[in-house]
């Protein structure tokens, strides 16, 4: 149903001079879902986000957000979006509380409303003890949580997160994922860009795989893995010199292989069984690992490259 589509893009394109950053992408984001743009750095994700955020003007194509054209109704659309940019742009002169306060004021919210809302947000972002701290003194994870809390101050219809956990250590990432998962459970519509396949698998109901400004595939993480990869993957290492030499022999043993600089990936429905056959043939990898297919494998299949260079 069209009316459920909060974001609707057809042939969405953005050019900077001769360079095409986003090249005719089509997608819809449905109310209540968590939608992802997965792709490596430079795939055009952030540019797409800035167009959807009704700040950057598109070069061509159709785009409606909440049934409105951002070229004509930028401020009205932005009134209902919560934006978490890739780079935290908090006001470094102000405290944690003041950052939430002034951002709320930009939406024209009253002081009285903000007083209560700020308490809610401090609790959500686990920053109650840092309420009077200056932004500069916060850790990377805390800044990120504050930026997310700030984006929620206006109770937006869509929360947009551009690379939410890039640059964070594993523990900080997990805390952040937990917060985002709560929002998802509450039914907040999320739009997330990431170049981490684990993040996409954890947070996204549906996603598009982007590369060089274009969409390569679309679906749920499980469906994409099913469509573009096998159930399991056997990773074998023979040492960097022998890997290339072994590839031709290994290719005979399974449906498909991918050669990476440090290892060979063998695609199969049953990894253990394949490993047995590798040994039977008399090949002895230095290390071997059987794992389930991931979105990384989907990306590799679609583009021949890995997500993180």
């Amino acid at each position, binding site marked *: 149903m069209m009316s459920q589509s909060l974001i609707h893009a057809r042939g969405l394109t953005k050019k*900077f001079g001769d360079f095409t950053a986003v090249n005719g992408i089509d997608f819809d984001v449905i109310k*209540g879902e968590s939608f992802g743009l997965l792709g490596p750095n430079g795939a055009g994700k952030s540019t797409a986000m800035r167009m959807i*955020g009704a*700040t*950057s*003007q598109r070069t061509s194509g159709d785009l409606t957000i909440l049934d409105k054209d951002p070229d004509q109704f*930028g*401020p*009205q659309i*932005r*009134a*209902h*979006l919560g*934006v978490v*940019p890739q*780079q935290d*742009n*908090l*006001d*470094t*002169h*102000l405290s944690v509380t*003041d950052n939430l306060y*002034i*951002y709320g*004021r*930009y*939406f*024209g*919210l009253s002081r009285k*409303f903000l007083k209560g809302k700020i308490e*809610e*947000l401090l*609790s*959500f972002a686990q920053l109650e003890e840092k309420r009077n701290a200056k932004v500069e003194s916060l850790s990377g994870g805390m800044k990120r949580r504050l930026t997310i809390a*700030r984006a*929620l101050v*206006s*109770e937006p*219809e869509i929360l947009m997160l551009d690379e939410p956990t890039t640059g964070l250590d594993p523990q900080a990432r997990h805390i952040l994922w937990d*917060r985002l998962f*709560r*929002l998802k459970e*509450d*039914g*907040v*519509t999320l739009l997330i860009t990431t170049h981490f396949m684990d993040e996409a698998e954890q947070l996204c109901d549906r996603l598009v795989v982007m590369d060089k400004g274009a969409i390569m595939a679309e679906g749920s993480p499980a469906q994409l893995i099913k469509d573009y990869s096998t159930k399991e993957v056997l990773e074998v290492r023979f040492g960097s010199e022998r890997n290339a030499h072994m590839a031709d022999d290994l290719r005979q043993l399974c449906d498909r292989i991918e050669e990476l600089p440090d290892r060979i990936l063998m695609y199969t429905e049953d990894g253990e069984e394949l490993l047995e056959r590798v040994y039977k043939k008399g090949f002895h990898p230095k290390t071997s690992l059987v794992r389930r297919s991931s979105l990384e494998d989907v990306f590799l299949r679609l583009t021949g490259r890995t997500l993180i260079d």
Partner: protein
Amino acid sequence: MSSLQTRQGSLKIVDAARVAARGALFVTEARLRAMVKWVWLIISIAIANPVLYLVSIGLGLGSYIDENTGAMGVDGVSYLTFLAPALLATAAIQGAMDESVYPTLEGFKWDKTFFSMNSTPLSGNQIAMGVFFNSLIRTIFTAVLYWLVMLAFGVLDSPRAWLAIFTAVMAGAAFGAFMQALAGFLENENVFFTIVERFIIMPLFLFSGTFYPLTNMPIFLQWIGWISPLWHATELGRWLTYGSEISTPMLLLHFIFLNSILIFGLIASRRIFTKRLGK
């Protein structure tokens, strides 16, 4: 446990029309909130600046000049009286610059706060106006304090001398708006500091009839004063503070020039801010 209320679209709490009408003031409010934290620095600069200049150049250099020209030797008044209105306008311009150039560079480049403002219903026009209002407040504050120090130094001879505050603020606003546009336009801030400050702002200060009448300059250098808001404000200030002679057409010209720069600066700022944020 999280107690966050996410009323997904069920309650539209944002009033876009309210932001459309008053958005620039929200931008100003945010900056004022930050400025309060260094308000003592702002006050100290606003007072120390006139005191240091008036004592060192006005009294120090002034007594030397007055010795040679007589107590009423420069434009019919003492050197200190002659110099003070020019320094008032200079201070107003300096205050305006501080609050327009730095926040603009910070907003676009250092902290990127303009981009966060622009992700709310605020528009580029409103952000530009908010920054301008802020610099206007700082300019008025600086000019009033400067004027009070001048009063203490006894260099205000005319009953209408208080009006010099307005002409100084006018110069500050015009220069500030223009420099705000320029700071938004030059995406590389080093260009601003190395070229604009040294080769535009500095000569404007030195060749604007600040320390001696502009007519003392050879005719081929006088044009610098003519394009400088500082000279126009200084001429108006001298007329207001000690009744320096000025013809009516010149009076009008000074007013029209300063206000034209102001309007040009504001229009340019709004366009540049909107364009740069919409890239």
